[in-house]
């Protein structure tokens, strides 16, 4: 990502690889696991990786790291179910819990030994920490928070697309004469592939040669989040979201009312959060959460690109906005041009009556 985004169209540069970089082949996905669980973003990336590997006619490889044991082996097997042909198993007691230093060392060594052309990681706190460190150590390019991945059929280059600053614009980023091409992608941006439990692959062990005594940073404790903090929003089947168009904090109640009747989760734009109308954990978008519900009702939301990338994979988008030219109508399925403050209660009433739920008319 260029630090100074340009809005001018950029002439396509011929990317000619040095001889030694031609040896880099294959698409890799880092399988992120913490405390025994694989982060679902890894399997979402495996689905994308499969598609790109097929296009490039190369292997899709998983990288599974952790302490030796049945847990790690399960992750390797699962990577095959989600599409990997091969899984590099990097087992060491030093890798039991995530720490930047040993993970960076292990992944860097593995890349140097087996030379992938593409390496994907989830844009999680772990993935961003690791990706930034590995890319700098390898001195290669890294594109953060991509929303679309494609291959340039002419030169096999990865084309990684992400929203660009400020405006309703996207930019596609390519990596020049450097390998591997690295990218991070956020959770729920890509669809979860259907696992194929009968699929098998090849496990290749890699010995990272790590010694605990030479690792400076020590994990003293891990304080798990309270169960109540568990996020339902990314997996909600119905989301009712409110934006700045609600006008004032009190009106956000109309969003909660409709969501309550629908059994839906509540989402919001960053503008609504900045206004203090709702807590930041409800933010949908590039710097918030990504949702993929069956139904997304957007009330008083303009549809800025940073919001759009977090919800445009919804099966059905209903937009309520009093401005017929609002960008959200470019990608909504149903357009309701009107005042959300009067539409929302009407919707609550209509859905309540269909669902057979009690509904108290606002006074």
């Amino acid at each position, binding site marked *: 990502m260029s630090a100074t985004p340009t809005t001018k169209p*950029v002439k396509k540069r011929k990317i000619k690889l040095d001889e030694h970089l031609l040896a880099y082949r294959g698409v890799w996905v880092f399988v992120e696991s913490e405390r025994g669980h694989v982060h679902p973003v890894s399997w979402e990336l495996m689905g994308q990786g499969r598609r790109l590997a097929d296009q490039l006619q190369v292997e899709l490889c998983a990288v599974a790291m952790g302490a030796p044991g049945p847990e790690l082996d399960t992750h390797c097997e699962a990577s095959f179910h989600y599409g990997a042909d091969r899984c590099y198993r990097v087992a060491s007691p030093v890798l039991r819990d995530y720490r930047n230093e040993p993970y960076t060392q292990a992944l860097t060594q593995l890349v140097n030994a087996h030379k992938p052309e593409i390496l994907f990681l989830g844009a999680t706190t772990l993935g961003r920490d690791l990706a930034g460190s590995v890319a700098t150590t390898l001195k290669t390019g890294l594109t953060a928070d991509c929303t679309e991945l494609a291959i340039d059929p002419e030169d096999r280059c990865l084309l990684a697309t992400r929203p660009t600053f400020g405006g309703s614009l996207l930019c596609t980023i*390519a990596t020049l004469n450097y390998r591997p091409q690295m990218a991070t992608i956020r959770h729920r941006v890509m669809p979860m592939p259907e696992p194929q439990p009968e699929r098998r692959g090849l496990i290749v062990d890699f010995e990272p040669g790590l010694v605990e005594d030479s690792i400076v940073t020590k994990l003293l404790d891990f304080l798990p989040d309270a169960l109540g903090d568990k996020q339902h929003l990314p997996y909600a089947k119905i989301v009712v979201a409110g934006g700045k168009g609600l006008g004032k904090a009190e009106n956000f109640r109309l969003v909660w009312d409709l969501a309550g009747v629908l059994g839906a989760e509540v989402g919001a734009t960053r503008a609504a959060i900045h206004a203090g109308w709702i807590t930041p954990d409800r933010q949908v978008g590039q710097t918030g959460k990504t949702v993929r519900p069956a139904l997304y009702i957007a009330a008083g939301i303009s549809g800025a690109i940073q919001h759009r990338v977090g919800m445009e994979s919804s099966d059905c988008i209903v937009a309520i906005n009093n401005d017929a030219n609002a960008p959200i109508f470019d990608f909504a399925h*149903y357009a309701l041009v009107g005042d959300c403050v009067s539409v929302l209660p009407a919707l609550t009433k209509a859905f309540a009556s269909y669902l057979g739920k009690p509904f108290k008319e606002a006074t």
Partner: protein
Amino acid sequence: MHIVVCIKQVPDSAHIRVHPVTNTIMRQGVPAIINPYDLFAIEAALRLKDQLGGRVTVMSMGPTQAEPALRKAISLGCDEAILVTDRIFAGADTLATSYVLASAIRTLDKEMPVGLVFTGKQTIDGDTAQVGPGIAKRLDMQLLTYVSRIVEVDPAQRRIVVERRAEGGVQVLETAMPALITMLEGSNEIRFASTPGMFRAARATIRHWDRNAAGIEDIKLVGLKGSPTIVSRVFGPAARAEKAKPIPFDPADPDSCANNLLERLLNEMPKVRKELEQRRSDTQ
């Protein structure tokens, strides 16, 4: 202890407007601010200084127009500011940016050894969260990202304990200094500038470091030349092929609009219908 804080001046996103026809960013009149996430890094550094004494140097790579951001940092209590500025730095991606900042910090370290470097979690323009980790790796410093709390610092033992936000919980990590910390937003309340602070900021001399002063060893690694990634295309998002279906709305009768929408969802959107029917049978 000597602490360095890296900050970036960014356009205030609240004022950014997109030209409705050309789809380009309208920069005119957009005020520049300190990247909001970096304010938490400044605050964390100043709190350590309040507690342990020492010195806080604030550093930014950017054009000379970025001076006000550095002055603002001084008004909050930072001791000194360095603007790393040279036209060959233009067009840098994160790899090239981290090279320049790491070189400058290494140079500064010779004046007075640096114990901690702070950065923000990410910028609101680049939005990559890569520059912090990049600087740490280049300086071979311990890296602590997404730090929500500094638990303990012992400069004599060169030891630091922090809480770090991880997926599903908080890691308590202990490491040795020098270390680089990327500070999480909301980690502490940001102070206001005091009146003497503002006077000091207005009078302060901001050091400008060009490639030589910053100790850049290889100019092939800076700016556009040193950047592995290029923007190959910028474009507006496509509208969906099928236009949104209008649901007529009459302010005098919102109920029929709502019922119309409900009916169409049930008839035209099987996935929505499935969800709604399931909920209906759950209530019965």
